[in-house]
């Protein structure tokens, strides 16, 4: 990945804040921040279209090009960076901000890598069998130079009721270290039962009104007085039974 690391055209962001970031986005630029290696973080601007195309392709390691920056050569020109975080809009579809960390190719970093399930699971041939993959990406620690685009998990031998935990996934290199919880389930085949839905509906249906935890229980001797009081109020709605 590192040899063909795409180059991002970057420039310093002079104005910071919500209002200016919105203007930059409207002008086709993506606000971002660059930090790491003990240096002060600097707000930057990237060309939105190219950057997002690379990010959507799954690229994580880039090289920053500050060509045309004011005041001569930029100190971060040609710097290798790692995509650390993305901020989305409220619908979770549009990227509004990106975080990049300065890295060296020989440096060990922690990042998340997507899992690709390979093969046709034999358990899926059974009626009602569903393939679930609650963990779609693994967090690993590895060198920047050997950061994989994805990790393949073979599910051909996966049967009904069985699962593949994160610890059982073979990482592409021995120097890689798994950070994700080793018990996290990467792939699992479950049988969808029709009975489950019916049971859930009955269970909720029985309780017409929920139990109130803080409801005051009537003390002894007060019940008679309460009954008399309740009789006086004829127009009380039926929902008052719990009181």
């Amino acid at each position, binding site marked *: 990945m590192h040899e063909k690391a795409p180059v991002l055209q970057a420039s310093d962001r002079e104005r910071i804040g919500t209002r200016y970031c919105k203007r930059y986005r409207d002008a086709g630029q993506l606000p971002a921040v660059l930090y790491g290696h003990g240096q002060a973080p600097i707000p930057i601007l990237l060309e939105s279209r190219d950057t997002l195309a690379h990010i959507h392709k799954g690229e*994580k390691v880039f090289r920053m090009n500050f060509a045309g920056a004011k005041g001569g050569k930029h100190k971060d020109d040609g710097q290798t960076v790692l995509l650390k975080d993305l901020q989305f809009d409220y*619908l*979770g579809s549009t990227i509004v901000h990106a975080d990049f960390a300065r890295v060296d190719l020989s440096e060990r970093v922690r990042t998340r890598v997507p899992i690709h399930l390979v093969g046709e699971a034999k358990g899926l041939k059974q009626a009602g069998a*569903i393939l*679930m993959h*609650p963990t*779609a990406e693994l967090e690993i620690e590895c060198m920047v130079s050997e950061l994989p685009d994805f990790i393949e998990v073979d599910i051909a031998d996966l049967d009904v009721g069985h699962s593949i935990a994160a610890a059982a996934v073979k990482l592409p290199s021995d120097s890689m270290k798994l950070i994700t919880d080793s018990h996290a389930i990467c792939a699992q085949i479950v049988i*969808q039962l029709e009975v489950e839905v019916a049971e859930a509906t009955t269970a909720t249906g029985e*309780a017409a009104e929920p*139990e109130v935890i803080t409801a005051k229980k009537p003390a002894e001797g007060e019940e008679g007085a309460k009954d008399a009081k309740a009789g006086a109020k004829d127009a009380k709605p039926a929902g008052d039974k719990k009181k």
Partner: protein
Amino acid sequence: MALLPKRVKYRKEMRRIRDRKATKGNYVAFGDYGLQSTESLWVSGQQLEAGRIAAQHFLKREGKLIIRVFPDKPISKKPLETRMGTGKAEPDYWAARVKAGKILYEIAGVTEETAKRAFARAAAKMPVKCRFVGRQVRV
């Protein structure tokens, strides 16, 4: 039967502000595809159940349908032809506070085409505008 909680701390609740955007539960987390609300509104337990049944009947026994919201807010309503005042009314139904961006349902184990058709049926039962979304890697 509509969804409702088993136990609550208080019977009645204040209305609170509704016009917000979701910061949690706004991405597909468990299944492969999801139905996302693009508006903020209260969605009643009956509506959620109607949506679930519509999608489940289309799916038959295929796939797994997950409901990501739960109606835990009691909504009070005064009876018809009642004068104003005399305290807060009795709870009428239970609703889920759905903010714009919230994922309402998720499906696992079906093709994209099947999921789209199932969610189209569920979306027709919702009081909010919805859109179909897939799972995406979030770095």
